[in-house]
């Protein structure tokens, strides 16, 4: 049976934890609103870009198109771009990314492929370092929260393009949390190289391309400029989604933590009051039985 003093200390410590978690929840909620807006406003650009790409792809390049578009004909070495958070305390956010990455890696390895990783964000990088650290291509930090800029996406895109041109990998896929709602985030895989065109988009583009597009400048030149931008755009989109998801996950996790702390405080207070009552009763009995004995 813990003493009254112990209980009091315990309650106070849970109370101060609750203050911290509820402050973190509030901060995450405020940031989330901005991040969510950014993610939603960033979607049209990425969507249009995909549409333009779909238009170009359905012009049927076969195997002779630019390597960034149709790949280099091989799929031996896979690069996974993993987007996690730099900080923890955001529920299953980092865990689900890490888990997905691990299963993806073992799947690719069982198919006899070589895997390389480009880690964006510290948490997954730390979690996987011991088992997969030797295949890290690079690790980037500090691209998080509400400060994601297009320039960040361009610089990651540059790393990927340089690696691809140097023949370090053949296929590039991004793994990130897609923001669905404040309580749901979806781990998503998006292929960057060769460029992925969804079946729906390809179909709608097919309709559009029955009329022939004019190109200015020539198609090849246009593609050479468009493809790098497409990669940056898709990365930027993934970064925005990922940071909105992170904040949403943190908000939910901190909300739960605050609620749990509240429950714990209630329970501890009950125990505290009971034992206080018991002590008082015990003391009364002692006094009364003492008085009777006289």
């Amino acid at each position: 049976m813990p003493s009254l003093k112990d209980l009091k200390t315990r309650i106070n410590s849970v109370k101060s934890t609750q203050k911290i978690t509820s402050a973190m929840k509030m901060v995450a909620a405020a940031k989330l609103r901005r991040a969510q807006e950014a993610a939603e406003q960033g979607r049209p650009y990425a969507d249009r870009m995909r549409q333009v790409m779909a238009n170009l792809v359905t012009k049927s390049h076969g195997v002779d198109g630019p390597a960034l578009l149709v790949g280099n004909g091989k799929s031996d070495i896979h690069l996974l771009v993993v987007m996690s958070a730099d900080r923890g305390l955001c529920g299953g956010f980092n865990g689900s990314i890490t888990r997905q990455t691990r299963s993806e890696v073992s799947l690719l390895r069982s198919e006899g492929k070589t895997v390389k990783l480009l880690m964006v964000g510290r948490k997954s990088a730390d979690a996987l370092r011991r088992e997969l650290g030797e295949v890290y291509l690079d690790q980037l930090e500090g691209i998080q929260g509400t400060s994601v800029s297009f320039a960040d996406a361009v610089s990651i895109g540059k790393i990927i393009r340089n690696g691809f041109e140097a023949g370090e990998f053949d296929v590039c896929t991004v793994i990130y949390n897609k923001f669905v709602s404040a309580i749901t985030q979806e781990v998503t895989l998006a292929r960057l190289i060769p460029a992925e065109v969804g079946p729906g988009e390809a179909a709608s583009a097919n309709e559009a391309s029955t009329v022939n597009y004019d190109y200015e400048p020539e198609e090849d030149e246009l593609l050479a400029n468009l493809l790098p931008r497409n990669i940056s755009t898709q990365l930027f989109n993934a970064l925005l989604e990922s940071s909105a998801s992170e904040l949403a996950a943190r908000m939910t996790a901190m909300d739960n933590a605050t609620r749990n702390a509240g429950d714990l405080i209630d329970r501890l207070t009950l125990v505290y009051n009971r034992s206080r009552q018991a002590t008082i009763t015990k003391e009364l009995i002692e006094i009364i039985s003492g008085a009777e004995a006289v």
Partner: protein
Amino acid sequence: MAKTTQLELVTPARVMVQKAVEMVVAPGVEGLFGVLPRHAPLLAELARGVIEVHENGKIVNRYMIDGGFADVTPEAVTILAERAEDLDAADAADLNTRADAAPEVEADFLRAVAAAL
């Protein structure tokens, strides 16, 4: 016959413009081109320059972009630009302060916008 074409100017951060217009003049890499309703489908790369929106034969809006792509269909013009500024809302002093704080590539564009005012 349609009298307007749907103009959309989209940057990674947001949809900047979305409205029906009579004519758009865009800075293609091979020279300026105008787009009227029912223009033939065209995919063009754009250079740094000014997009002019015409209404009743007059320029009503001007936007400066730092290169990009225009996807023209008979019904719509979609312009994808990494950076864009509304020249009517921009203010040279403000642009220069932003340019000083921005990374080099962006600063360069902002100064160019300030110069074009």
